[in-house]
């Protein structure tokens, strides 16, 4: 029985560890909190895995113990072990139960300690507050600042400085979503009418992917985001750039592209700071071209993908709330050039 179960176990272990990526994985921590949880996981596996093997060995032992009388016929209808055997077994079972209780108590203590360490809600003073609002099916992101002119609005991508504590304030515009960047920290639900919080701290620069973990409707599968952890200096530069308005069109083609954008229904939902476009329904596009992906992690941010997305969003992400806005074919190229210029 065990040998046959072992085969798929081994195969699947090889397959998944061999192929799966490390930028969306709870086993490749890039932050202090995730690292603690991974340690806890390996401890669990070692301890509970050994117990499992022992219990299984005990279970199959009678099968390999010939004198236990497997399938021997005829046999007494009822077998009554001696009172001494029963007493001995009672002591063994009691001891095993005692051991179970002690192990579980230890695990509770360990779990609570790890929980306190990873909840990380000690006030540090120097933390960055990022407001994340779940929407069907994208993430609105707002960097808070005491200075209102330095509040940054963006979408589907969060940049964080390495080594600084981040406080996520989670909210939802519609249904329940869940914010989860496995390499950095466990998940936190975003619940309408409530504000939930989560702390994390990245300690390795890199790009980490996360996706919505609470079923939120039709396109739950395509509600992903990127977190980019970078050295503080790079982060500050990114921040300063993102706070800028969108660059003005520099040539006639992008000029035309901006006119196309402003002349179509795009502006009803999207905002581009520095232009009259100020829609609040969809993601802010001020620095669209600087982002890793479009459509909430659905497609890499390339010109071709952008063209496909604008022309036919309902095929790429069926049921999403982006309307198909008819754009004349001769207008498409300028529009794309303009959007690509929003570095």
């Amino acid at each position: 029985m065990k040998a046959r179960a072992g085969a798929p176990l081994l195969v699947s272990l090889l397959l998944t560890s061999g192929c799966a990526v490390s930028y969306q994985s709870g086993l490749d921590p890039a932050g202090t909190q995730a690292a603690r949880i991974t340690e806890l996981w390996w401890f669990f596996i070692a301890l509970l895995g050994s117990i499992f093997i022992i219990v299984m060995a005990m279970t199959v032992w009678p099968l390999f113990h010939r004198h236990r009388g497997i399938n021997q016929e005829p046999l007494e209808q009822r077998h009554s072990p001696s009172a001494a055997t029963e007493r001995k077994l009672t002591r063994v079972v009691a001891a095993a139960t005692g051991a179970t209780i002690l192990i579980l108590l230890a695990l509770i203590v360990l779990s609570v300690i790890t929980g306190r360490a990873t909840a990380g809600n000690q006030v540090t003073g120097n933390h960055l507050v990022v407001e994340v609002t779940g929407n069907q099916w994208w993430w609105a992101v707002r960097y808070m600042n005491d200075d209102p002119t330095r509040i940054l609005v963006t979408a589907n991508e969060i940049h964080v400085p390495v080594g600084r504590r981040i406080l996520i304030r989670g909210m939802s515009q519609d249904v329940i979503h869940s914010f989860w960047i496995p390499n950095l920290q466990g998940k936190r639900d975003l619940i309408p009418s409530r504000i939930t919080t989560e702390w994390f701290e990245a300690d390795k620069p890199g790009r980490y992917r996360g996706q919505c973990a609470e079923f939120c409707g039709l396109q739950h599968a395509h509600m992903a985001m990127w977190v980019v952890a970078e050295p503080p200096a790079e982060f500050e530069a990114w921040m300063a750039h993102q706070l800028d308005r969108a660059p003005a069109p520099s040539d006639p083609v992008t000029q035309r592209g901006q006119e196309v954008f402003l002349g179509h229904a795009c502006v009803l939902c999207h905002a581009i700071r520095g232009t009259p476009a100020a829609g609040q329904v969809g993601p802010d596009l001020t620095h669209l071209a600087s982002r890793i992906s479009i459509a909430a992690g659905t497609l890499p941010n390339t010109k071709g993908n952008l063209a496909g997305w604008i022309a036919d969003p309902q095929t790429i992400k069926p049921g999403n709330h982006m309307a198909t806005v008819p754009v004349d074919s001769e207008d498409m190229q300028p529009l794309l050039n303009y959007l690509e210029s929003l570095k």
Partner: protein
Amino acid sequence: MSVLTEWRAPAPEAAEEQNALYRAWADGRGIFSWFSVTTHQAIGKRYIVTAFVFLLLGGIEALLMRFQLARPDNTFLGPARYNQIFTMHGTTMMFLFAVPVMEGMGVYLVPLMLGTRNVAFPRLNAFGYWMYLAGGLLLYGAAFTGTMPSAGWFSYTPLSGPQYSAGKGVDVWAQMITFTEVSAMCVAVELIVTIFKLRAPGMTLNRIPMFCWSMLIQSFMVIFAMPAVMLASTVLLLNDRTIGTHFVNPAEGGDPLLYQHIFWFFGHPEVYIIFIPALGMVSAILEVHSRRGIFGYPAVVLSMVANGFIAFGLWVHHMFATGLPQIAEAYFTAASMMIGITSGVQIFCWIATLWTGRLRLTAAMYFIFGFIFIFVLGGMTGIMLASIPFDLQAHDTFFVVAHFHYVLIGGALFPLFGAFHHWFPKFTGRMINEKLGKATFWVLFVGFNLTFFPMHLLGLKGMTRRVYTYPAELGWGPANLLATIGAVTIAVGGILFIANVLRSLNAGARADSDPWEAGTLEWAADSPPERFNFAHLPVISNRYPLWAPREQQGIVVGMRNDRREVLVTSSMDAEPHHRLVLPRSSIWPFLTALGFAIGLVGSVFAFSWYFVSAALGMIGLIGWFWPHRPVEIRP
């Protein structure tokens, strides 16, 4: 064989007095009588067969999901269809298969094991079955006419609210729950009374068979858990959807977390409602096939009782990610881990039974060994998930999918298959093919692990639940393909099982009343049992009456055979108290269920149908309780 022949059914040519039993318990022929049946064997079988049909449907849905996820960016099912199918899969398995099939096993086996002739409320029993069937037909009737819920089997608000789930799918889902929960409550009430009051004389509390203990505990859990889900689905959700209340609508000050609390206050015990009867089956099968009484009877019973209590203190571990206060969460971590203690005690006692028994390795025992492997593994991941920091990583990922399939398929389905192989001779009068049974086990066991083991790793590698597709770059393709291959293997196992059942039904060797040389009373009745189970009600003085010397086996005398009489005994010591005449067969439970069903189905569309439901149900109940001079009472 040292069993008293007086317990068995009399030969047809026996004395007139004995033949009266057949007449008193006869149901008559024809379609009208078919709807009037109130004997527990018939109703139990109907529950089991209906539940297996739903298992088949739920299994097909699972296969469809696995085909969609077999490779990245697959377009076999679109997002809308996929969401409907996973909702139907969860709903079917939880509400229409797992609970009813356990109820069915209980309804069939408990009266036999207790040495009585029927459940305490035979008409309520029939009513419960018809309500369950109506609920299943409502859900699938709607599904096949194009209306399917797609907000998950848990239907969290506000996603399931009127704004985000248009159409009637969620309403149908919510009202289907009313049906199945009413049915579960009926069974719970009648089983509790049966187990407390209709036991064979001499069957004191510490002689109750293990499976009956498990059904007793499960029934109490049903009574406390099921009202919560009806409150969540009907009062909160359905009223929000149909008459514009705002209990759980955050836009109007309602609280979506309130729904989650109430739902999981039901939802967690639900899992134990499914698997505690399975634990009882495991103990019962182990006793027979290791040819000794269960080791540590009081410890096992008390563990199950403790399981039943602790089950109501765990619900928040489904909500760790919602950001509840830490101190409360720590409490629920501790409570969740306590299940490890009560489950551990039972597993240790089973192992002790195995060690000191004389094993007979039947197909049923194969399933028990498979159960221990899968269930213990699922228990280990359960302990991990009880830890909040780890849960926050694993929650709502495929790790959790793997975990609960290990505990539910391992903890309930494998014992159920074992039970089916074990009690098949009792159900049908024929032996099930052992070789095919063992082959079924191996295919299911390998297929199961192939399907669900890779999911642990997928979850840790970031794959969230309920996604209809995933990008190729994330590298989840191979493990998902493996899982799909496993799912097909499980399907093959299912086909083997069905083939074995059909073949054995027609060509299996005839079974005598006690083919396994078992100890409990159900094996004293004929295979399959007559409608009255026992010609003379047994009197016992031992936990395993069939293993006891013949001089310790007795019969109740002085019962009338020309009406449906059972003996009521005291609830602690099972001392004879009085004779109770059970009602005859009746069409009214069916008509009452039909009346309620018409109204409740209508209420999906308009609130006023509740009045129709009340009126029609009332008419049914009047017919049900219409007083008439019982013809069988003669001076």
